[in-house]
């Protein structure tokens, strides 16, 4: 029995000292944030966080240690409540708790979360109970998938981004003004495009300026001749004109011939 009491005492003492470390670290961090914020660098902020997180970890480890008795089974009972100021208490708590009254005791000695927190927790547990284990599993998988996808995205293009920004940092040019002029001249006047053309290409002041029209993919939509696929014929004098349309194929042929001399696009 005595051994257990000693053990408890020892563990409480070490816990108190650990908490004191955390307190000190927090204290100095807050002091820095309030008084040295203008010189504080991000790495040193991170250092402070790392220190706090390490100390909290130590406390967690201590509490989980086999040798630490379960504080849960210890009972603390307020024996005497008093509305009067207690100087010893104030000193012990660095002037934070000057009285041990029925007003503050429930707050300081409570072993359960705040009522609002309790309420929220209840809602969450209800929610968790409502969805079946399968749905939960699915949601977990989805979340994992999203996370790994995001991680992959963040990791992969990092190399690309770094390569790109390093290229930019090295001031590698990404464009060449002379090329711009050559290309603009080419689409506008065919400059440098066809060698077979007679020199002194087109008269100055042409409406030129090559458009790089959007080409096939962006052609505006047209209804071209809705009548195809049907078979029209007309009554009336139509048939008397047979002679003239009779020339059609031959004249088309002539046209193709005259066009194909140097430039017909269908040659391929």
């Amino acid at each position, binding site marked *: 029995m005595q051994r257990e009491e000693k053990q408890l005492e020892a563990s409480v003492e070490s816990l108190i000292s650990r908490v004191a470390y955390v307190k000190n670290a927090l204290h100095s961090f807050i002091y820095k944030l309030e008084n040295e914020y203008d010189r504080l660098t991000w790495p040193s902020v991170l250092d402070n966080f790392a220190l706090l997180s390490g100390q909290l970890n130590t406390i967690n480890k201590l509490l989980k240690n086999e040798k630490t008795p379960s504080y849960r089974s210890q009972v603390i009972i307020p024996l005497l409540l008093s509305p009067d100021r207690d100087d010893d208490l104030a000193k012990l708590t660095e002037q934070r708790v000057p009285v041990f009254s029925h007003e503050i005791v429930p707050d300081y000695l409570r072993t359960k979360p705040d009522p609002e927190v309790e309420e929220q927790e209840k809602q969450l547990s209800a929610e968790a109970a409502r969805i079946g284990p399968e749905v939960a599993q699915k949601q977990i998988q989805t979340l994992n998938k999203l996370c790994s996808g995001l991680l992959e995205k963040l990791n992969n293009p990092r190399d*690309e981004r770094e390569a790109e920004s390093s*290229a*930019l940092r090295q001031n590698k*040019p*990404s*464009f*060449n*003004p002379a*090329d*711009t*002029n*050559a*290309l*603009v*001249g*080419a*689409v*506008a*006047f*065919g*400059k*440098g*495009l*066809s060698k077979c*053309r007679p020199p002194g*290409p*087109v*008269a*100055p*002041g*042409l*409406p*030129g*300026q*090559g*458009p*790089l*029209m*959007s*080409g*096939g*993919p*962006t*052609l*505006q*939509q*047209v209804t*071209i001749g809705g009548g195809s696929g049907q078979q029209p014929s007309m009554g009336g004098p139509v048939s008397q004109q047979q002679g003239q349309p009779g020339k059609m194929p031959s004249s*088309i042929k002539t*046209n*193709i011939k*005259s*066009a*194909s001399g*140097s*430039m017909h*696009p*269908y*040659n*391929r």
Partner: protein
Amino acid sequence: MEAPPVTVMPVTGGTINMMEYLLQGSVLDQALDSLLHRLRGLCDNMEPETFTDHELVYLLKGQQGNPFILRARRSLSHPTAPWHLRYLGQPEVGDKSRHALVRNCVDVATSHSLPEFLNEMGFRMDHEFVANGHIFRKGAMKVVVTKLSRILVPGNTENIERLSLSYLVELSVLAPAGQDTVSEDMRSFAEQLKPLVHLEKIDPSKQRH
């Protein structure tokens, strides 16, 4: 030829007085991927579109004055798509208050008989080239990144040679005449492509020689 009186001629359909607002620039082949990457981020979320086109530029010479130019374009990747016939007016570059080159523009989609038809009208082909590349859109704005190739054997679009080690980059908007606010949008978009590409209002007549 510019700003034709609209009412003198009968018009059954079509859109009169459309203007093209244009900014141009280029990007070196090795920086193409960076540019495409950035355009994918800046532009409307859509499937990346590529194109391979054959453009034929036709001239019609009158007794006096400048020849009339028409551009006929067909898609090599979508051979059944309509041909695209385009008229472009004289560019207005002088106005300093406008951030983009502005020119009159008529786009016509046509059947495949276009070359024969233009020949019958008296047009003769002046030059031709192959253009392939990528298209992006952001609202009304269109960004076209094009590799230009010269055709070595007339009419043979398989036998081609690229014109330069850069891609032409064009930012354009089609709008009815007078809507100059679009050039503001274009300028701010062009700012976002710097320093990768500098899109500018380029007077093509200065590139002639």
